[in-house]
C-alpha cells in the first residue's frame, strides 16, 4: 500500500470545476503511475482540456485535490506552481505557438526560461528536437507560415524540449494525416521509453490511443465512467464505449 501510493505520480481526487454555474468536472478522479501512459477519451466539450489544464494549475478547481509528485497543486501560489511546472510538458490542443517568434525561438524559449544551458547546447537541442518531429527545414520560419500539422509537431517539440518527467498531450494527432499521426504516436512511445516519461494523452484518435495507451479512461458527465486497456474496453458492450470504438472497427 505504501509503495503503491509513492508510485502514483499524478493523483487527481474528486475534482469539481464549473463555468458560469455549469459543472464540467463532477468529482473526477484519476491516478497515473510513474512511467505509465494514460489515454483519455471523451466527447467534444466534455471537459478533457479542462482536466489537463487543472493539473498544471492553469485552471483552479472549486473542490478536490490534485497531487503531482506528491505535491498538492490546487491552491498553490505562483512560485510553488512554477516549481511543479518545471516537471511538466504541455502540448496544447491548438499548438499555442508564439506567433511573434520563429520556430527556433519558440523552442529556445522554455530552455532559456527553465534551464541555464549554454548557447551552443541550446542550439544543439533545438535542432535535435526538430529533427525528431521531422521539421528540421522549418527552423527559421514563422508559425504563420506553417501548416496546422506542422504547428502541432512544433508544439510537441517545444513541450518536450526541457525533458520533463510528465507530458500532457492535448490531442497530439488531431488534424494530422494518418501516416504522420502514426509517426507521432510512435514518437510518443519512443520518448516515453527513452526518458521515462509519464503521460496523459487526450485524443479522439483510436489508432493513437491503441499505440500509446497503457490504460484508457473514458470521461463522461464529469467523471470517468470506464477504465481499462485498449483490448478490455474494445470488448465492452456499453453503447458509449462502442461509439468510440466503432469509428475504427
Amino acid at each position, binding site marked *: 500500500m505504501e509503495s503503491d501510493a509513492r508510485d502514483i505520480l499524478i493523483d487527481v481526487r474528486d475534482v469539481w470545476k464549473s463555468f458560469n454555474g455549469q459543472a464540467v468536472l463532477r468529482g473526477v478522479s484519476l491516478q497515473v503511475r510513474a512511467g505509465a501512459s494514460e489515454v483519455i477519451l471523451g466527447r467534444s466539450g466534455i471537459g478533457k482540456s479542462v482536466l489537463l*489544464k487543472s493539473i*498544471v494549475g*492553469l485552471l483552479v478547481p472549486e473542490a478536490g485535490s490534485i497531487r503531482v509528485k506528491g505535491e498538492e497543486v490546487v491552491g498553490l501560489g*505562483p512560485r510553488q506552481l*512554477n516549481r511543479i*511546472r*518545471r516537471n*511538466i510538458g*504541455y502540448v*496544447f*490542443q*491548438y499548438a*499555442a*505557438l*508564439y*506567433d*511573434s517568434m520563429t520556430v527556433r525561438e519558440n523552442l529556445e*524559449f*522554455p530552455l532559456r*526560461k*527553465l534551464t541555464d544551458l549554454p548557447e551552443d547546447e541550446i542550439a544543439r537541442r533545438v535542432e535535435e528536437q526538430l529533427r525528431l518531429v521531422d521539421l528540421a527545414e522549418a527552423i527559421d520560419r514563422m508559425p504563420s507560415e506553417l501548416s496546422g500539422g506542422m504547428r502541432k509537431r512544433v508544439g510537441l517539440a517545444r513541450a518536450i524540449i526541457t525533458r520533463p518527467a510528465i507530458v500532457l498531450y492535448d490531442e497530439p494527432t488531431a488534424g494530422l494525416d494518418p501516416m504522420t499521426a502514426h509517426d507521432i504516436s510512435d514518437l510518443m512511445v519512443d520518448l516515453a521509453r527513452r526518458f521515462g516519461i509519464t503521460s496523459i494523452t487526450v485524443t479522439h484518435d483510436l489508432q493513437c490511443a491503441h499505440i500509446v495507451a497503457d490504460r484508457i479512461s473514458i470521461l463522461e458527465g464529469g467523471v470517468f465512467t470506464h477504465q481499462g486497456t485498449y483490448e478490455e474496453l474494445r470488448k465492452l458492450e456499453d453503447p458509449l464505449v462502442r461509439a468510440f470504438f466503432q469509428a475504427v472497427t
Partner: protein
Amino acid sequence: MKQIPTAKLVELYYRRALSAMEEIYGITIFGLRFFRYVFVPPYEWGEVRKHMDELGAKSIPLLTVVGTIMGLILALQSRPTLDRFGAGAFLPAMIALTIVRELGPVITALIVAGRVSSGIGAELGSMKVTEQIDALEVSSVDPYNYLVVTRVLACILMLPLLTVYVDFLSIFGGFIAEVLAGNTTFQLYFSDVISATTFLDLIPGVGKTAVFGFIIGIIGAYEGFHTTRGTEGVGRAATTAVVLASLNIIFVDMIIVQLTLMFFGA
C-alpha cells in the same frame, strides 16, 4: 413596435451599470499590479526595448504629419484673431504655450492610443484566445510580467519622447505658416518661442504624458488579457481599448491640468 416591460429595462440597466463597475474595478486592480511587478526581477529589458522600437515605428509617421499640420493650422487660425486685438506679436508665444502645455501632449496621447492601445489589445487578445498566454505560464513565465509590464513600461518611456518630438514639429509647423505669410523670420519666431516657454510649462506638459502612456498600455493590456469568445473577441478588445484609453486620457488630463494650475500657478 416591441414593448420592453419597465421591470426588464430596469434590470437591464442595472446589469449594465454593474458590469461597468466591474470593469472599472478590474482595470484598477490590473493597473495596481503593475507597481507591484515593476520594481522586482525578473526584468525583461530586451522585451521593453523591442516594444519601444515598435511603438515608435508605429506612431512616428502619423505623429510627424499630424504634429506639423496641427502647428500650421493653429498659426493660420490664430493670426486673424490675434491681429484683430492688436496682439499679432504674441503669436509665437501663444503657439508655443498652447502646444507645449496642452495640444502636444493630448494629441500625441490620443494618436498613440489609437495605434497602440488597439494594437496591444488585439495582440494580447489573440495570444489569449490561442492559449499562448497559457503556454507562457506553463513555461514558468509570469505573463503579466512578460507581456504587460514590458509593454506598459515601453509606453511610459516612449510617450514623453514622442511628445517632445510632436511639440517641436508643431511649433515648427506654426513657423512655416508664419514665414509663408511673410510675418516673421526664423530668428524672430524662435527667439519669441524660447523666451515664452519655461521649464514650468515643459515639465508638467511632457511629464503628464508618462501617465497617459501608462493608461494606453494598461487599458490595451487589460482588454487583451480579458478577451473571450475567440477571434470576434479580439476585434472587440481592440476597439474597446481605444475608446476607454481615449476617454481616460481626456479625463485624467482634466485632473492633471487642475493640479498643475494649483501647484505651478498660471
